């Protein structure tokens, strides 16, 4: 039962990552990230109960509170303020990006079998999904031009790392987890301000314009 819930939630995270790649509306992408974090919260809660590690409940609560509610709310507010709702044409079009992501997922899954824990069972899928999401996140960061999408990509990578940390290792010390959560908020806040500055300066969220030295 526990294994099934874990696998389904991990697969759900992968599906949301995929939909994010196929998505140009920023609001939907942010909501998808919220759903992805909710799945992560469920993973943490499930493990907390099945392996009786109550400290993971705090992690789950923090994840849901920050990444499902607070960060999406903040990012939506940023978008509302700026008034830019859609991703401009990315460097690679959607079908091509999806193909690349399928390839990346296969690579991620294949690599996961190289870990001693990753040959079979739940941890195989958890590591596979996490590595795939990590690669997809990096890919999104490289190919998208909007600063907001890049923040979402960074957060996806963060979720992927968290999935491995929670699901496969015996967990991080509580202080470290608090520190990471705090780090994530700060990063998003700073990036939000940065987005404002970019839009002020260039009247667009297109980060490819940053390479122009003269405005």
């Amino acid at each position, binding site marked *: 039962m526990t294994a099934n819930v874990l696998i389904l939630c991990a697969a759900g995270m992968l599906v949301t990552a995929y939909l994010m790649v196929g998505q140009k509306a920023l609001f939907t992408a942010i909501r998808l990230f919220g759903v992805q974090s909710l799945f992560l919260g469920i993973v943490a809660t499930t493990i907390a109960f099945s392996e009786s590690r109550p400290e993971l409940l705090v992690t789950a609560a923090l994840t849901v509170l920050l990444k499902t509610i607070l960060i999406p709310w903040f990012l939506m507010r940023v978008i509302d303020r700026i008034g830019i709702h859609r991703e401009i044409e990315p460097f690679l079009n959607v079908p091509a990006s999806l193909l690349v992501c*399928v390839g990346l997922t*296969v690579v991620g899954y294949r690599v996961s079998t190289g870990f001693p824990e990753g040959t079979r069972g739940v941890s195989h899928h958890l590591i596979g999904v996490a590595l795939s999401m990590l690669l997809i996140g990096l890919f999104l960061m490289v190919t998208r031009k909007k600063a907001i999408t890049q923040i979402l990509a960074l957060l996806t990578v963060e979720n992927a790392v968290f999935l491995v940390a929670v699901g496969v290792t015996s967990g991080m010390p509580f202080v470290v987890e608090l520190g990471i959560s705090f780090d994530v908020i700060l990063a998003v806040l700073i990036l939000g301000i940065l987005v404002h500055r970019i839009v002020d300066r260039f009247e667009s969220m297109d980060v490819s314009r940053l390479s122009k030295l003269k405005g």
Partner: protein
Amino acid sequence: MHQALVAAGVVLQTAGLLAAAPLLKVAIKKMKARLQNRQGPPWAQGYFDLAKLLRKEPVRSDVASWVYVAGPRVYFAAAVAATTLVPVVVAAAPLEAAGGILLLVGTLALGRFALATAAIDTGSPFGGMGASRDMTIAALAEPALMLGLFTSALAAGSLNLGVLVRELVAHGPSFHPSDLLAFAGLFIIVIAETGRIPVDNPATHLELTMIHEAMVLEYAGPDLALVEWGAAVKELMYLTLLADLFVPIGIATTLSPVALAVGVVAWAAKIAVLAIAVTVVESANAKLRLFRVPELVSVSLGLVFLALAIRFL
């Protein structure tokens, strides 16, 4: 004895699906209306519409050939034939000896082909435009549908839907990540194939956006009734397929009355849940621009391809 059983199964299942299909359409319309604070049509509206259309005399263009007349009939027949390959209440399809997934996809393609050629037949620009749009989407959706079905077939080791469902019931769901990926991909395909909102809007006849409606714009009377009824049966069949492959709970494995009753209730409940999901998707999304539709379908193609690939890793 066995042949009598097959015949009874075919008749009962087909009749049941034909009877339930208009109800599903109205149910989705009604739920959508409720979400918009409207009352929606009465529950029997689907039957009233069909009765009204069937009573009218068919009006056909002077230049229309037999292709135009055959179109709706083949489409309807293909939709009904496809349902006999899908297990609904019992964990066996009535005509499963005839074929499995490939026959199902092929039959549906035959119906689509008949309707598209019929739409071009009169030479009106609307029909041709609708047909070309429908085919554009179908060309992408069909491989995705096949790959999605293959993912489940791979788990059960059979392309036959009856055997597949029996395997699933015997071993329980496999709980592999590819199940969820395939489900997400197939759900998008179902939305695209049944002409629901992010892809097509079933409620309007706005010339710039319509796909399916443009194709059948010229039909009237009994011809139109066949097209609409066929489309409704197809929609119900797709939802049943999703329920069969991913939540095979409650499906009857014996022919005892209790098992059958449980099967009917479980099937109705699963269809209701899926209908709610379709309604929510329809209400929460805006229709995509036509040239963005291939992007959406390619997302589902990516998902099902990945689902298939992960099975081997």
